[in-house]
């Protein structure tokens, strides 16, 4: 009779196991947060664009709502500011709250002309909102990298990747807003896109290289991403459809020197799709090593 190799290895405490607690809801929150914060920065500093700012605030607010829905006790959300000295989730919640308050104040004072006749108040609020937007872009990466329980997350590359991908996702949202508004600043948008997508691909390749040479648990995460259950989403969704195809599309439009809105629209949508899959894959590729 053939005996199974290890009949007791079903539990992660005696085998590698993917993290199962955080999934679609957290990926969506991280995606909306990074994209919204990135869009705010583009809309504020690269091309003053109030529609972009409004949508950015909406995206970040939606990220907060997405997180709140996932809480076991949503009514206690206000308590999540309490442990900001130790917890990155607490720092993230605080940064989102301050960002929303500062961005709304800035937009309100600019649009309605309240508070002051000169623009210094609005500018101060915009600077504050921008600083907290960058913290909000970084915080999901710092949350994950602070967990020693999952070695693949416990890396300085994770916050960097989340920051870079937030800029890229923000760029894609920015493109959609520019297209919707029929803006003439699409040339600036294309130039930024080539640099950002190329930087994202480069950072992902560096990260994958580091994963492939890590400890056993880290290599298990690498295997999940490249040959395991997440390979289709990561190789196809993040790297292929989410980065390489949009890069080719943007390069094509730039080289052709003709604005093709459909190609730009497609590139932006694919980057957004890849941005969501990136967060999902990083979360799901978190592998706990066995206890013994």
């Amino acid at each position, binding site marked *: 009779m053939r005996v199974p190799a290890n009949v*007791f290895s079903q*539990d992660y405490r005696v085998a590698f196991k993917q993290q199962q607690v955080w999934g679609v809801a957290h990926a969506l929150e991280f995606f909306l947060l990074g994209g919204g914060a990135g869009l705010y920065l583009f809309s504020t500093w690269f091309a003053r664009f109030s529609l972009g700012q409004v949508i950015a605030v909406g995206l970040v607010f939606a990220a907060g709502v997405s997180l709140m829905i996932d*809480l076991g006790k949503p009514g*206690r959300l206000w308590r999540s500011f309490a442990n900001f000295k130790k*917890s990155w989730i607490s720092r993230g919640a605080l940064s989102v709250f301050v960002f929303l308050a500062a961005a709304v104040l800035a937009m309100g004072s600019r649009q309605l002309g309240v508070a002051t006749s000169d623009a210094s108040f609005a500018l101060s609020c915009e600077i504050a909102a921008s600083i907290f937007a960058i913290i909000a872009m970084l915080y999901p990466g710092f949350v994950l990298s602070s967990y020693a329980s999952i070695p693949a997350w416990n890396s300085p590359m994770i916050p960097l990747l989340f920051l870079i991908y937030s800029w890229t996702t923000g760029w894609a949202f920015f493109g959609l807003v520019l297209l919707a508004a029929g803006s003439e600043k699409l040339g600036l948008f294309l130039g930024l896109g080539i640099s950002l997508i190329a930087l994202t691909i480069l950072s992902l390749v560096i990260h994958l290289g580091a994963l492939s040479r890590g400890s056993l648990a880290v290599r298990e995460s690498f295997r999940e991403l490249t040959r395991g259950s997440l390979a289709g989403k990561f190789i196809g969704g993040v790297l292929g459809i989410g980065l390489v195809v949009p890069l080719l599309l943007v390069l094509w439009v730039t080289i052709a020197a003709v604005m093709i809105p459909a190609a730009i629209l497609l590139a932006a949508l694919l980057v957004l799709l890849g941005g969501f899959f990136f967060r999902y894959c990083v979360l799901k590729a978190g592998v706990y090593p066995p206890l*013994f």
Partner: protein
Amino acid sequence: MARLGMIIDLARCVGCDACTVACQAENGTPPGIQYAPVYRKEVGKFPQAKVIFLPTLCMHCADAPCMKACPTAAIHKRAQDGIVLVDQNKCCGSKACIVACPYGALHFYEERSGVYGTELTPQEERGQAAFTAGTAQKCTFCVHRVERGLEPACVITCPTHCRIFGDLDDPQSEVSRLSRQRNAFTLRPDAGTDPSVRYLP
């Protein structure tokens, strides 16, 4: 000041699961939540194959990652004995502690439930009265027993006396002596948590 901890003698454990059952009875946890599971692993090859057992529980770490992960500061370490507890009135159910724990020692308590569905046994009724739905739950080292001078339920139930409970900060205690004499080790030392549960090979 003390640092309560546990020594688990792996050479003595026979994998009877009495500790798991005693814990569940003592704390009235629902069917999906076990604070003290015993894990099994098949090692070696025939004819030298054998099954080894790993009794587990919350490690009540000195540098608890769940405490750092919790956004609401609901998880705290008691200054008088080092027991790590979840404040049911502060936990917002973010599950950050569950992800952060390298030992899988934290659980999410969704709703009241027992082995017979929503109708709870008296033990479950008593145990789950202290739980709040939508929050994290974990082993408390049977703090309600410790405060009465008793040992945790898993310790007194173990028929092979493989679990020994005591003060790790007291060099004269049995746990400290065994830890020194038999080269006790901890699980996942790479996580840097300094657990208060140690194992004897």
